[in-house]
């Protein structure tokens, strides 16, 4: 009784936890397909792919991606190189220096990103000035500064990944290569590097991802080369659109895809290794065939499902035309708006009647004055052609700000105060 209660509460807790973790991403992804101009899930309007095409037409986003790729490549090269050198040094440094050395190379992980960005900016600005170079020199270039700033701490991550594998390296292998006549560089290239390759690949992926999503350091160093993250931050801070959701959806999908791919690969290696233990070497070649790629490999199955889903979605996107739905929604909104206007008009009529009745009591002196101005205001609004044009804007624009400059005609209508002021 007690244990089953515990078990259930564990699962409930897990469910809540993962809902907190993954829910926001799912919701954000869904908003990318809603035709509402503000990223939201409800009310659901229409399934649309327009935000994707909008995204791909956004020059700033595309430029940001380009800069991110350039900076990412630079950071990967520099931080993997420094991380490897740092790891090699760690395994052979004088024991008395080791603790200090380790503290120094691990510290960048703990230093706040903004501090790294600022110190990089300040330091290289100073070097630049000391060398008497101008403001447009290489040393004050945004790409250079960002690569340097990011590598400062990303190299620490790489070092940690690499040193884990390096600890399993048998130094006798290098010695054997030297003994057989290889130079140190040859031994490094032909023996150590191939051994480190898996760790180097992991470190490179890690470095690229860290560089790609870095904001805190980059925001001080990017200069004239804003990365995708910087562009996104600008957009998110000064007005959000579902185009960002569309980008997020793409990133989420890619991440899930690669995570599954990696998992499937690992699982496959495990299966092969397990099979290897059972089967002799000769049998192996025949035994491991493609179908067994899936056998007992959950991730591989998910991967296939995922691929099918992607193809379906892309297929739908090319064939699907949401125009009808959008038109329907527009019509719906139009009707709603008209209804509201009708209601307002009714209210207004009633008030006027009431007022007229009051005024009738007070006398007829001021009676005719307010009427014409009121009529002209309404006249514009109700003219069918004006209405259509304005509704178009209303559907696309956010409903947060219904009283935008375009809607000045409406503004007056919706605001009961102004009605009263009119009189």
């Amino acid at each position, binding site marked *: 009784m007690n244990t089953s209660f515990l078990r259930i509460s564990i699962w409930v807790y897990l469910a809540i936890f993962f809902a907190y973790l993954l829910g926001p991403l799912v919701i954000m992804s869904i908003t990318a397909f809603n035709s509402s101009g503000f990223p939201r899930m409800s009310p659901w309007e229409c399934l649309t792919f327009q935000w994707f095409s909008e995204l791909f037409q956004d020059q700033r986003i595309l430029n940001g991606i380009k800069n991110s790729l350039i900076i990412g490549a630079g950071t990967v090269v520099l931080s993997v190189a420094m991380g490897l*050198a740092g790891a*090699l040094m760690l395994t052979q440094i004088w024991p008395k220096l080791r603790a200090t050395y380790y503290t120094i190379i691990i510290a960048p992980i703990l230093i706040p990103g903004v501090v790294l960005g600022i110190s990089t900016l300040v330091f290289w600005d100073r070097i630049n000035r000391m060398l008497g170079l101008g403001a447009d020199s290489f040393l004050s270039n945004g790409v250079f500064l960002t690569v340097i700033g990011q590598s400062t701490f990303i190299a620490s991550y790489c070092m940690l990944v690499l040193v884990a594998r390096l600890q399993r390296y048998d130094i006798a292998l290098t010695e054997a290569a030297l003994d057989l006549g290889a130079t140190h560089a040859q031994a490094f290239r032909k023996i150590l590097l191939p051994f480190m390759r898996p760790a180097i690949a992991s470190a490179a992926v890690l470095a690229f991802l860290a560089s790609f999503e870095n904001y805190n350091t980059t925001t001080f160093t990017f200069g004239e080369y804003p990365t995708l993250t910087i562009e996104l931050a600008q957009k998110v801070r000064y007005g959000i659109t579902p185009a960002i959701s569309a980008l997020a959806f793409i990133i*989420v999908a890619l991440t899930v895809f690669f995570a599954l791919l990696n*998992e499937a690969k690992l699982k496959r290696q495990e299966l092969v290794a397990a099979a290897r233990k059972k089967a002799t070497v000769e049998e192996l070649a025949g035994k491991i065939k493609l179908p067994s790629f899936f056998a007992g490999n959950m991730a591989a199955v998910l991967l296939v499902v995922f691929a099918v889903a992607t193809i379906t979605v892309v297929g739908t996107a090319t064939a699907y035309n949401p125009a009808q739905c959008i038109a329907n929604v527009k019509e719906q909104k139009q009707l709603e708006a008209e209804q509201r206007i009708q209601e307002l008009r009714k209210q207004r009529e009633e008030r006027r009647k009431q007022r007229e009745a009051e005024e009738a009591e007070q006398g007829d002196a001021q009676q005719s004055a307010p009427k014409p101005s009121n009529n002209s205001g309404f006249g514009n609004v109700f003219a069918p052609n004006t209405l259509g044009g304005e509704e178009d804007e209303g559907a696309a624009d956010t409903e947060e700000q219904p009283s935008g400059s375009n809607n000045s005609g409406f503004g007056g209508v919706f605001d009961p105060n102004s009605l009263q002021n009119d009189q």
Partner: protein
Amino acid sequence: MPGFLKEFFNRNGTGMGLAILGLVLFWTIGLIILPQLSMLDFSFRPNLPPPEIGGPKDVYTLENYKYLIYGPEGGSQSYNAVDLRVFFRTLIAAVCVTIFNLIICYPIAYYLGQSKGSHIRIFAIMLIIPYWINEILRAFALRIIFGETGVLNTLFMGLGIFDTPFDFIRNDIALYAGLGYAYILLMIFPMYNVIESLDGNQIEAARDLGAPWWRIHWRVVIPYAKPGISSGCTMVFMLSAGALAAPQILGGPSSLWFTQLIYQQFNDNNDWPQGAAYAIVLLVTCILFVLAMMRLFKVNMGDIGK
């Protein structure tokens, strides 16, 4: 030392040895130590236009640090209440976020660390995936949820709990949720690594001796997981206190994060020395916090960053 260097070059060869040594020196001295020292030096200098730098006015001063405490000279208040409040609020909020994360992550880390089976790998992937998504996008996702017409408000209003939309952003709830959300993985992983290596028999033994579940955790699991806990807490505190994106996107208009002050000094006020001084204050605070954590939990540097 020369003996060490000689051995180093013997082992790696002259060319490779120089390459390794060069890269390590460039990284440790050129990228880590000198920039920090340079920033420290910079923070003690007045804000001068470029031509006057190095001139007679370029002297060391405590002005930038005084500014944080006393505010502008001749200001109406005797203390820089605004900036100091932001500073302490940031620290307290970062501590709260850390504790919040610790509480929600401990059960997960314990569960993942102590249960066997292939579903653990799927959980691990589900944990890692959000961490691979851009920081900005994660904040953006939460903004969609916590927005005035966001999912939560729609839900609560639909259920009739609220009559009018609740402003999660102005009340900083979105910010704290966002900071907690951003660094969950960094809290779970160090704890998970340690708890995974805890021999399940110890827990069995404790249970066998009749210990209630909370006592098992208090006396067996938590003491064992201490290095992981302190490592996770350190990382989360550092990253929360140093966060910039989440406060910018999820923070209310009136509440600032200390990093935002630094950002303003650099980008809006164009007062680099002042910004550097603030950055130094943040850095020193963080270092003190790490040292305090290490002292408190009696762990060493080697345990951090696993």
